[in-house]
């Protein structure tokens, strides 16, 4: 099963894509993914209900978040009520250690994204201040990467033994499905996704 783990809709301040249009695009262009995760910036969109779109298009739509930490941006999968009360998703300076620890405690999982990107990725921060305990997965393929960003992320993963996921980081419709993550198992929910990520059996894939 292939899931694109990093996408933004119009719920994000810089997102320009409607979720229905993502679905329409995936089917029309035969994008080879089975579903995608909406990781809106600094928030968790608990209100939107995409079940009708899932049924209509036969595409799995899950929800996560992209929060901002002192080590750069971090995807959080498996967000639940406990985690929403554990830290303030709107903050720009969350300690990564807190996000990782609280995610683990609440049954979620935190994954630093686009690590090779200047300022908002963790590579430079790790070089300067060392790794953060508890990080086990990072995004090694990001659809918006420039230059050596993905290469740097993969080098960081290799050095510290991190597993790697892929995500498009789409903000417009036509950018979905540029990168994704292939799982050997079927995933039907956010809880399944967290379990699959913990198992460690997956690979980042790219079509760019």
């Amino acid at each position: 099963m292939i899931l694109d783990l990093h996408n933004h809709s119009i719920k994000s301040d810089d997102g320009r894509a409607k979720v229905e249009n993502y679905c329409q695009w995936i089917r029309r262009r035969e994008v080879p993914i089975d579903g995608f995760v909406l990781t809106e910036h600094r928030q968790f969109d608990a209100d939107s209900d995409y079940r009708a779109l899932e049924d209509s298009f036969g595409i799995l739509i899950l929800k996560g978040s992209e929060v901002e930490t002192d080590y750069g941006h971090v995807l959080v999968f498996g967000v639940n009520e406990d985690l929403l009360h554990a830290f303030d998703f709107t903050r720009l300076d969350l300690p990564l250690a807190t996000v990782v620890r609280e995610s683990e405690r609440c049954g979620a999982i935190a994954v630093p994204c686009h690590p090779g990107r200047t300022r908002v990725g963790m590579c430079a921060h790790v070089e300067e201040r060392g790794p953060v305990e508890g990080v086990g997965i990072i995004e090694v393929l990001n659809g918006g990467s420039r230059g050596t960003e993905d290469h740097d992320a993969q080098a960081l993963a290799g050095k510290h033994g991190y597993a790697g996921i892929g995500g498009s980081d789409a903000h417009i419709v036509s950018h979905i499905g540029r990168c994704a993550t292939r799982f050997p198992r079927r995933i039907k929910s956010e809880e399944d996704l967290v379990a699959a990520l913990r198992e460690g059996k997956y690979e980042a894939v790219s079509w760019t």
Partner: protein
Amino acid sequence: MAGPSFDDLEVGDELPEFKPDVSMERIRLFVGPSGMAAGRFTDHEAARKEGLPGAIVPGILSAGILAGLIHRWAPGSRIRQIDTVFRAPVLVDSHPLCRSVVTDKDESDRTVEVDLTITNEQGETRVMGTARVEL
């Protein structure tokens, strides 16, 4: 000049690509009359002193270039809304590529929504956006 027919368009249809001229000569022609003749737009060395990789194309011009792509494709169309997000600078004297693709159709008002991108020579997205176009 005949433009595309709304009825014939489908989600996924690509507009003709466009390679804009962003040479220093052309940029100076734009920034002078528009009152934007700052060194960051007109002088590579001055731009580098500001921490930029070189002189950059003004964002408002990038948006205009993308609007031009739409009107080359559909000369009689009306752009109801255009919205751009600047991810990284477009460099003066580079060779960017502008692309657009239909992502939605609204039968009720006969408009289409298109994605818009400007990429550099490496295919990296520098500017992206959307527009709603009445045909």
